[in-house]
């Protein structure tokens, strides 16, 4: 399995030959930022196309099929359209907060990108509190949504923002606890350590029952966290027209739209990291030749492939289930998911202490 850290070390040494240390680091930062932005927009474009195709398949339609082969260029055309659209400025709004909100939302998902394990050695920063950082970052997003709803000075957006606030605060608990369960199993918060601990078997297999429970809860809470159906109450179009982003237009709306898809990727990416071994290939103990074949697939493809497969499940939810009501949504979290989660954490701890795992 190729190690990207060799490549990055080579770039670093190359740069330090010509530049002083601080300048080299600055240049690297810029390169990373450019790569990140590129990955960000490419992924978003892909996801928009992917969701449309998947949704169309569920609905017995073809989906986009005119622009480019299989409609691949459709999302690029749409992105271009959004870029050239007018930013409508509204009277009686808090101009600064109104403009700030979409950036906060996009910032939150951008920051989370920094700690995702893209491939073997291909990680921007490997904290010892990586997972903690990830959860903290994703919480900034709710701030942006609340701001958007409040500053638009519109009753629908306000209700949407309040719903979103209640929903995200509640479901963050579930996300946190199910991740905590896996962190306890891995024994580390560092993302690199978590991935490496899954070299001989992904957590979903080695952690068996508690890991599966944690995964199911994580998937439900993750769907809620990204405001996607059946938990899309903050933007429930049949109730609140478009929820918190009703008043946004042009690229500001585009940011919300983009962030929604990127959050989908992040949630699936974290699920891949915590339960399906991050970039680790699929290995079966004892099947050496099989394992070697698996090793030939690049680690980046492993990670992104897993994330997309999990996203497919979340998209599948959206196009199958009707939407929940706000009280049902909250009782699902507080009455069911949270107690199950706490019990599951205890179960996991027992498994670890008594060594009931593989």
């Amino acid at each position: 399995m190729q190690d990207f850290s060799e490549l990055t070390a080579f770039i670093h040494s190359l740069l330090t030959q010509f530049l002083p240390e601080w300048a080299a680091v600055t240049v690297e930062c810029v390169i990373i930022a450019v790569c990140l932005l590129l990955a960000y927009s490419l992924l978003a474009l892909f996801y928009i196309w992917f969701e449309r195709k998947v949704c169309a398949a569920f609905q017995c339609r073809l989906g986009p099929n005119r622009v480019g082969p299989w409609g691949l260029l459709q999302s690029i055309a749409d992105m271009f359209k959004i870029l050239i659209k007018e930013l409508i400025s509204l009277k009686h709004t808090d101009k600064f907060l109104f403009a700030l909100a979409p950036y906060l939302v996009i910032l939150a998902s951008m920051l989370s990108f920094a700690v995702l394990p893209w491939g073997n050695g291909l990680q921007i920063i490997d904290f010892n509190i990586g997972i903690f950082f990830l959860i903290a970052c994703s919480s900034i997003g709710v701030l942006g949504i609340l701001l958007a709803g409040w500053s638009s000075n519109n009753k629908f957006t306000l209700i949407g923002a309040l719903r979103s606030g209640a929903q995200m605060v509640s479901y963050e608990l579930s996300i946190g606890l199910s991740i905590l369960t896996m962190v306890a199993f891995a024994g580390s918060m560092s993302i690199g350590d978590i991935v490496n601990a899954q070299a001989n078997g992904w957590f979903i297999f080695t952690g068996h029952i508690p890991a599966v429970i944690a995964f199911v809860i994580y998937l439900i809470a993750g769907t809620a966290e990204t405001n996607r159906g059946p938990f899309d109450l903050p933007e429930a179009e049949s109730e609140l027209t478009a929820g918190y982003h009703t008043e946004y237009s042009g690229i500001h709306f585009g940011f919300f739209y983009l962030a929604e898809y990127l959050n989908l990727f992040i949630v699936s990416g974290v699920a891949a990291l915590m339960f399906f071994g991050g970039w680790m290939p699929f290995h079966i103990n004892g099947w050496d030749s099989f394992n070697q074949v698996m090793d030939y697939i690049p680690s980046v493809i492993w990670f992104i492939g897993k994330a997309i497969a999990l996203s497919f499940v979340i998209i599948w939810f959206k196009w199958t289930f009707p939407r929940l009501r706000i009280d049902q949504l909250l009782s699902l979290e507080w009455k069911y998911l949270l107690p199950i989660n706490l019990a599951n954490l205890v179960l996991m701890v027992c498994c670890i202490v008594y060594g009931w795992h593989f």
Partner: protein
Amino acid sequence: MANIQEKIAKLFPEAAFEEADTLTVTIPDAQWHELAKTLRDDAEMAFDYLVTIVGMDWKDSLGCIYYLDSTTHNTHIAVKVIATGDRETPYIHSVSDLYAIGCIYEREVYDFFGIIFIGNPDMRRLFLSIDWKGFPLRKDYDMNPDINPVPHENERQSDYTYTYVEDADGKIVKEEKRVFAEDDFVVNIGPQHPATHGVLRFRTAVDGETIKKIDVYMGYIHRGVEKICEMDTYPQTLHFMDRLDYFSAHPYHHCLCMCIEKAAGIEVPRRAQVIRVIMDELSRIASHCLFIGTFCMDLGATTMLFYTLRVREQILDIMDKTCGARMTFNYETIGGVIADLDPDFVKDVKALLEILPKNIKEYNKLFTGNVITRNRMEGVGVLSRKDAISWAITGPSGRASGWACDVRKTAPYAVYDEVEFDEIVRTEGDSMARFKVRMDEMEQSARIIAQLIDKIPDGEIQAKVPKVLRLPQGRWYQTVEGCRGAFGIYIESDGGTSPYRLKIAPPCLPLAAVVDHLTEGSKIADLITIGGSLDYIVPDMDR
């Protein structure tokens, strides 16, 4: 009917009787409220269902004709009340305390005729803007566009409503009160809103997510169909029926045709009768398909829409081949149908009947059993049988509350008495029951079509109708089972070529009126569920 007449004559000596299409009682306004109370509460009469209020302008006087039905005895009666007071301020006593739907029906009469109902808690205009000058259905109404120009500014809105009450000396006093409390957080759901199914506005007072009160604001698609009909000849009036319930136009067309045929004494050929019934039932399947699709979409299950539209498309294609249109068919005509069936018709319908059960099974699998669906719909917006009758909620929504109100069974028309089908009645009265009733009705409609499709008799499709059709003097009322409830047409003729008064009694007006009653104390999301499950359609209520 004779003993009812005797009984009323004994209690109310002033009452005059007239045996027309239905037994008509004429009563002075002073005794009207008392009579209404007797009619409703007397066990022998039990006229508990207010079908419609027809406002009338007889040139020398204004008044109303109330059509009442008894749900226990299946009898009908009409009560004619002439307004007191002068033409400027005519008064009639309100029956909104006896019949819940009375409130909105009286508002409609007030809007068109200016008759003030004493005791009605909400005496505002219903369809027209509050600054409208004149009362359009009065015979002396001035249609000059300068009087009511098209506004170029926002319509004036008012937070106040009025009540007229009689004080101790019998003087009528106008009282003003707020629609909402002063510090209510009022959200406008509509007129442009994805879930109002047309241009309808719910002014919703909410407390957080909980609904406190809803004020239904309609009239955005009001086109004055009744007024236009007064200026048209009878064959011309038919075209407007397609534009009321545009999702299922056949039954409405059928109703007006039947009413005119009844009045003119035209015998419709049997072939046309059978074709009409098949078309009605195809419409019903198409309409219920659309209901299921849009209702599920309101609940967030977008995928269902595409599944149900597939079947609807197939039906619309069948219609297209025979009627030449997909929505505004204009197919039934006075004395029969306008064109013969397409040669492929029988084959196409049989193909539809074959795939339909499979599709219904698929809908149930995808949606009905889902736990989220059940949580969203079960126990939401429960309407009791008594309330359903009082609010005049007919059709599938009424039957979901346990009220067997299917006109095809209570007063069979065309060939409905010759076919076998079950009237679907459920007792839960919640949104789920309303949904399931429609699901099951599709199967029953298919059953009716299956019985008729092989037995379409040969022969004429149209009776001989005079070129210039004049109806004799008199009045007629005809009801059919539309896809959303009982649809009624009232025609009063003065012997001319166009109706003196043509009143349309749509099923959707009560459906929209009852939303406030059903949503009190529930969540915003429930408003969408309840509104969707009632399946009202705005052009029908606005007319």
